[in-house]
């Protein structure tokens, strides 16, 4: 059961990821990205991380991607037109380079993690809001606070940039 859902959503995630690149229209690409986010959330759910799965949908699919689509609609970006022919090197070396990269990745992952266990589904129970909150405010307090300061800096930066525009 778990394996079926894992395969389904892993397949969907990869399919949507490829579709992001293949689509000519920005809205189609953005929606494919939403599909990737949703599939990833389902994978988290399969691993028992309920809170992370819901946060993934709320933050990425529900807020960030809506903003992307809002901006695309606002600018009324049309279909990609200046799509030139790819150079002959890309045609010649593209597929071999991809295969080589994949083989190298497999090689390195087996070399670096020689006897790692395979992922198990359904026996992880520490993914609730309580456990995440506890971890954030005990073990990971410093990274958590530093990240929030980083986001604050980003907000201030955005305000400064926008003010210049208004003046």
């Amino acid at each position, binding site marked *: 059961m778990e394996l079926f859902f894992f395969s389904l959503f892993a397949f969907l995630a990869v399919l949507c990821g490829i579709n992001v690149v293949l689509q000519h229209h920005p809205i189609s690409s953005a929606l494919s990205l939403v599909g990737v986010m949703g599939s990833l959330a389902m994978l988290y759910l399969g691993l028992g991380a309920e809170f992370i799965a819901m946060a993934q949908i709320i933050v990425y*699919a529900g807020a960030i991607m809506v903003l992307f689509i809002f901006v695309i609609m606002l600018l009324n970006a049309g279909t990609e037109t200046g799509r030139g022919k790819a150079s002959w090197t890309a045609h010649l070396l593209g597929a071999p380079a991809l295969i080589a990269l994949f083989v190298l990745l497999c090689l390195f992952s087996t070399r670096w993690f020689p006897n790692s266990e395979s992922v198990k589904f359904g026996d992880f129970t520490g993914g609730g809001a309580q456990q995440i909150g506890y971890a954030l405010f005990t073990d990971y307090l410093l990274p958590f606070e530093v990240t929030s300061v980083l986001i604050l800096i980003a907000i201030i930066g955005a305000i400064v940039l926008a003010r210049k525009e208004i003046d």
Partner: protein
Amino acid sequence: MEAFLIITAIKLAVILGVFMTTLAYLQWVERKVIAHVQVRMGPSRVGPHGLLQPLADVIKLITKEGVMPPHVNKFFYLLAPFLAVFMALICISIVPFGTSLTVPAFTIGGVAYGPYTTMMELADINTGVLFILAVSSLGVYGIALAGWSSNNKYSLLGGLRSSAQMISYELPLSLALAAPLLSAGTLNLRGIVDAQGGFYLGFIPRWAIFEMPFPQIISFIIFMIAAFAETNRIPFDLPEAENELVAGFHVEYSSMGFAAFFMAEYANMVTVCSVATLLFLGGWHPLWPESLGSNLFAPVLMFLTGAICVYHGLNPARPFDRITLPVFGVVFFALAGGLAFRPTVPIVMPIFWFVAKLSFLLFVFIWIRATLPRFRYDQLMGFAWKFLFPLALANLLVTGFLVALFA
């Protein structure tokens, strides 16, 4: 396992049937209430008191021709209503509307079937509140895509307005939701309702809006205001403002596409009202304790309604009232009998209180639509960011401080 599947299928059928009927009749109730507020009759031609009007509307919408304008983006034009209605309907699956139901053991054809106990909801998930937030934040895609794919300036403006408005009001909505969660200590909807059981001093219910360290009345009001914006209802129905945008994001839709958006709006209304009931109004817990006779309230109310119907049926204002109103009276008497029937009281009474609170909030939605005018767009945005958001933040801070202090 098989029993679980069969019970779930039965629950699914019942909930779907009741929910769809509610959505259809909610529109009849809305038209009637607005009509009476404006001293009109409202729908009254199809069936007695216009009661068959929803059926007539459904038949009209199904049999109409679905026009596909030539300038639309076909794929997204067809996808948008599906998305909107799917995201709106799926939320009801995790709303608990009562305690549990136990079917005693029985035998059919010599085979014994053990006693079955089932909770009164479709799915009980640990992150219920987050699930509703996630799904409702995905609902904006339906509207935004409908506006964009119609390739029409009015619908594009409607779609833009709706995405901006829903992003803005999601913040105060989530912050207002977080405040009662602090004292409940769980994200599970059933757990939140259970945390609100009991009474202070024997008669004040422990609902979140009366809660003792810090009553959540402010976050309840913030939640309701943000809910109006999230569901695109008057006074925040800028995405479909008739006098500016014709009909906003669904200008180009006809037939079932239009019906899907219409249904999504009412389903969203029911969802936010259910969430408000569960989080702030104590779910199915009665307003006063059973020892003071809260179980008598429902039958007495139904009986009085039936008596009023019968009285007006005997002194009819219109000729057909002589037949219709006594029939309604008998229906209400039957309801009163069902609610007073002792063996079913522990099952029926929680559902009655939940439905009563839900209907009250839905009535408030309709009442406000009949009363208030529409805001201007800059007022809408300024209100969310400059007033509602800081207020919700301050409320959350005070709640967190007091909960940490007293708990």
